């Protein structure tokens, strides 16, 4: 847990210190990727609390989820359909779900 929080802090500071920013046309991809990353992170936290955390599953889930969500977003923009909204909706629901389970597990302890 400490490593995770430390990593987050380092990442945020690194992001702030990095010059430049995401161009406007890539903003939807980036936000979707961020959503997927958060989802995976919460999923991992939940798995850890449930006791069946697997490093490989977590890492592969992190990158594959990001890749798929970005691809979805890209496809949606190509087809002129706002797919990224769907991606964000689904990922958001999953995050809420995960957080709810984490909360219950936390309360049960």
């Amino acid at each position, binding site marked *: 847990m400490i490593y*995770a929080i430390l*990593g*987050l802090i380092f990442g*945020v500071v690194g992001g702030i210190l990095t010059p430049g920013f995401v161009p406007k046309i890539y903003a939807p991809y*980036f936000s979707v990727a961020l959503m997927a990353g958060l989802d995976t992170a919460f999923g991992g936290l939940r798995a850890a609390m449930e006791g069946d955390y697997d490093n490989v599953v977590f890492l592969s889930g992190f990158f594959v989820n990001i890749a798929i969500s970005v691809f979805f977003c890209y496809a949606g923009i190509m087809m002129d359909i706002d797919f990224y909204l769907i991606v964000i909706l689904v990922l958001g629901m999953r995050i809420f779900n995960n957080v709810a389970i984490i909360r219950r597990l936390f309360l049960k302890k």
Partner: protein
Amino acid sequence: MNVKNMHTRILIFLVCIILGFMISMQLKSHNQHQTIAAQRAEELTVRLKEVQADRDKLAKELDEYRAGRISGAAQKEMDDLKARAGETELEGKGIIFTLDDSKQAAKAGENKNLYIIHDEDLLRVVNELRSAGAEAISLNGQRLIGSSEIRCVGPTVLVNERRLAAPFVISAIGNPQTLESSLKLRGGVIENFKFWGIKADVVQSDKVRVPAFKGNRTFEFAKMVSEEEKKKADEQSVENNKDKKKAEEQSAENNKEKKKAEEQSAENDKDKNNKDSSSKDSGNNKDNKEAARIPKAPDNKAAADAGKEQPESQQKNAGGGAK
């Protein structure tokens, strides 16, 4: 947390770094996009101000030019041309000529149209005035310029694409004496009008106002001849003139009589120019000519009828076409 070994911890650490990086980047980008929009707006405002300042400056300049920075000769020439083209209201000595339809009742079997003013009558008056040196003429407030028409349209007369009806008031600026006498020639326009009972009054005035031309004048087909084309045409004509001159010189060589003849003709011209002295004479000449042309007009109605019938039939045709 059931994290077993160092390896896993480091991986989680790295993933979280990526996550944190993405979060902060996302926030930063969001802010950046907003600031970019703001910057763009600022830039545009600055440019707008610049352009507005430019515009104001140019408008001021334009006003200055309009207000008469075109100085001296150019201005004078422009005014002169404007006055000639009928762009300005003019005032001066002249006459006011009023024409109204005849109040006489047509006799049985006579054509009523003979007692009405027609476009031809007005044209004759205008032509007479112009030949007498009128500088500006208006007909019922319509300035007559080069392109002005005077034409029958049903019961009205079309001038500058405007319908005018009797009574007609023709204002002309020029030498009042000459103008009046040109109308009052024996056998001239007024005498002709009087015969049919058409009212015709000439009033000399020191202040005759002729309004500016108000109609539309745009060239749809005519184009300005460019300078180059002009030069070409001039060169051609100059060559022709040269040939002519050579011929003339050849013929004029050894021939001094021609000079004498020219001098004589110049003297004649002088006489003509001297209007005051010769106007009466020329008037008399005109009288004689007119009298010769319409010898029996006042006496013989039938002849005059025949004379008037023709325009009337033309006019009927025109009316039918218009309807």
